[in-house]
Structures are given as structure tokens and as C-alpha cells.
């Protein structure tokens, strides 16, 4: 019973409480880049979730074999392997999505959500829990992307998932699907998430410099002349 409860908890935490994008502020690059339309957001969300779940399962299954010292390179290889698989599948079956995501599809390798989960969770927990954690985080990531792309597409093009929603007499504000709109909408969403979190007595989402970075543990910066620590001050 206790096991079951924690599985549900692990699953839901990624969606709301520890939403990777809005609460942990991870994976900002794809979040800003692919949210110009809902279609590409769904494509990116699902592709990244698939990689996240698979890599979490494999990393957690191999956590006792991988030597502690070389774990980061090992994680990167496992993740890159799954990214290549997803990349080939998308290219073969969804060429349209491949075209939309472009270079951001192979760049899932360096998405810090995936390496971050491997380091923070899958490397320490059993397979089933890691899979559930990956799934929850993946869904949380997809939801955040959908929310943001929905706002940007509606304001920037007057459509939702390609369908005309706003009457055509209202000129769309193209700036929202351009780069500045991405930063702006993301900033406002983080502010909203912060306000909601504060109301329920939780801390604000903050870019914590090193602690959010998956490389933190192996990084030589953790010494005394630490640039990150300097940043935190």
C-alpha cells in the first residue's frame, strides 16, 4: 500500500508541484524555441517524454553497474542513444514534425530536464519509480509547453492548433510568435506560477545557478573560487 501511494505521488509531483519548466526552470531552450505553435509543442513534448521515460528506465536499471566516476558520460551516451532512436522514428513517420522541430530534435540530448532527472532520481531509485517519475516529468513538460504555445499561438497568429479562433478582423500580434514574445510569455508565466505557489505557502521558482544544473556534482566549480556561488550572492 505504501509503495502504491508513493508511485502516485512520484507521478503527480512532476506535473504540478515540481513542474520542470515552471517550478524548476529546466529545459528553457526548447521551451522558448518550439512554442511558436501548439503542434510543434506537442511534438517536442512527446519526443522529450519518450526519451525521458526510456533513459530513466535504463539508467535506473544500470545504476549499480555504472561506476560513480563516469556516470555523467554514461548517462549522456544512454540519452543520446534514445534521442537518435526517437529522431529516426520521427523522421520516418512524422516528417512534418521533424521539419518543424529542426535542430531542436537532436538537441533533446542536452535538455537539462533529462540529464537532471537521471542524476537526481533515476541514478538512485528503482526502475518502476524512475519510469513513473520520468512519465510525470514528461507530462509536466508537455503541459507547460502546451500552455505556453497556446498563449503564443492565440495572440501571435489568432489560431489554436492551426484552427482560426480569433475572428480574422482582429489583426494578430506577430511579435508573440517571434523571439521576444517567447521570453515575455515565459516571464509572465513564471510570475503567475510564483504567485500561485506563494499563495499556497511555497517558495518561488528561482534559477538557482549551480544547484539546478545537472553537472553540479561533477563540476569543478564547487570549489572556493566558485563562479556559481558568486552568482548566487
Amino acid at each position, binding site marked *: 500500500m505504501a509503495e502504491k501511494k508513493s508511485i502516485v505521488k512520484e507521478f503527480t509531483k512532476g506535473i504540478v508541484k515540481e513542474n520542470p519548466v515552471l517550478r524548476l*526552470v529546466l529545459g*528553457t*531552450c*526548447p521551451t*522558448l*524555441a518550439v512554442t511558436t505553435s501548439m503542434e510543434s509543442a506537442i511534438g517536442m513534448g512527446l519526443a522529450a517524454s519518450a526519451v525521458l521515460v526510456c533513459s530513466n528506465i535504463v539508467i535506473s536499471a544500470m545504476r549499480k553497474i555504472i561506476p560513480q566516476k563516469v556516470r555523467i*558520460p554514461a548517462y*549522456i*551516451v544512454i540519452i*543520446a*542513444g534514445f*534521442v*537518435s532512436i526517437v*529522431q*529516426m522514428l520521427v523522421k520516418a513517420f512524422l516528417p512534418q514534425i521533424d521539419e518543424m522541430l*529542426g*535542430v531542436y530534435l*537532436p*538537441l533533446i*540530448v*542536452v*535538455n*537539462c530536464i533529462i*540529464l537532471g532527472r537521471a542524476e537526481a532520481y533515476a541514478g538512485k531509485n528503482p526502475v518502476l519509480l524512475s519510469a513513473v517519475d520520468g512519465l510525470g516529468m514528461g507530462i509536466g513538460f508537455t503541459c507547460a509547453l502546451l500552455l505556453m504555445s497556446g498563449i503564443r499561438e492565440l495572440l501571435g497568429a489568432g489560431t489554436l492548433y492551426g484552427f482560426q479562433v480569433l475572428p480574422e478582423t482582429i489583426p494578430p500580434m506577430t*511579435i508573440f510568435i*517571434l*523571439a*521576444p*514574445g*517567447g*521570453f*515575455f510569455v*515565459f*516571464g*509572465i508565466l*513564471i*510570475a503567475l506560477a*510564483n*504567485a500561485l505557489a506563494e499563495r499556497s505557502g511555497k517558495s*518561488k*521558482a*528561482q*534559477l538557482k*545557478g549551480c544547484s539546478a*544544473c*545537472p*553537472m553540479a556534482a*561533477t*563540476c*569543478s*566549480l564547487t570549489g572556493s*573560487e*566558485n*563562479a*556559481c556561488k*558568486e*552568482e548566487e550572492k
Partner: protein
Amino acid sequence: MKFLAILLTGILTNNYILAKFLGICPFLGVSKKLNTAAGMSAAVIFVMVLATAVTYPINVLLVKNDMAYLQTIVFILIIAALVQLVEIILKKYLVSLYNALGIYLPLITTNCAVLGVVLLNIDEGYNFVQSIVSSLGAGLGFMVAMVMFAGVRERLEGCNIPKSLEGLPITLISASLVSMSFLGFTGLVEGMFG
């Protein structure tokens, strides 16, 4: 002239941070102080150019042997190994350079701008020299954005910001404004060289 066009495209019109959203993590994380921002971007330029120089011949080899599908996995490993190698060499032989750049190197392994520039060079079908120039442009663009934004953030420190926007949100909104100013360069390179 082609080289200048590629260089300017990387710095101004297709700025990696402000138009392509690559390398946002260091952009938001390491831009609080001017000197750390400059140090980080110098390290990024260095690794970008080096990574391009190394991956270009390897990609030719991969394509020749029909193994282009291995690009992602091979490139990320090369970049990771390269960064380690550079760190070791600098530490041993160029201590002064290591002291200036060394501490930023580990952060660069998982920087999407480096992998991004390598992959984009291939997508664009650049030859060796063009790839190097394009990486240099991307790196310089990274530096311009970082240094400019560090200046903006130093100004923000003393400002009276609405409570709900404090911290990350106001940083993102100011990034939006900086990025909007870069929109002004749209069409500049085409106009000059078109």
C-alpha cells in the same frame, strides 16, 4: 564577402541566444556580473570553434560510411571529451588562460549552443572554412548578447520592481526587450550582401 555575411548573420540577425534560443541556461544563470559573463562567453567561443574544427572531418567520415544517423551521439561525445581534454591541457601548459576560462569549461559540455552550432553548420551545408566562420560568428553573437544583458541586469539590481515580478520573471522580460532590439537587424545582412 560570403564569410562576412555568415559572421554578421551569426552575431546580429540570427543571434544564437536572442533569436534561436540556444544557450539560455548560461544566459540567465551566468549573466549577473559583467566579468563572469565575458569569461563564460570567451570559453564558449573557444569551444565552439574547436568543436567545429574537430567534428567537421569526423562528419565527412560518417557521411562517407553511411552512418550519418550517428551524428547526435558522436558529436555530444566528441564535445564532452574535447572539453575535458582542453581543460587538462590548459591546466598543464597555459595556466594563465586556465585561470581565466577553466572554471567555465565544465559548464559548456551540456550547453546546447555548442551542439547546436555543430549540427546547424551541417544542416546549412557549409564547407570547412565557412563552418569555422559560422561558429566564430555564433560565439561572438553569444558574447554580445551575454555582455549586453549583463549590463542590463546590473542596472536592474537597483530598480524598484513589482513584487510579483522579482527575480526570474523580470529577467525574462528584460531579455524579451533586448531580443526585441535585435529584431531591428532583420534583413540587414540580406540588404548588405543580397
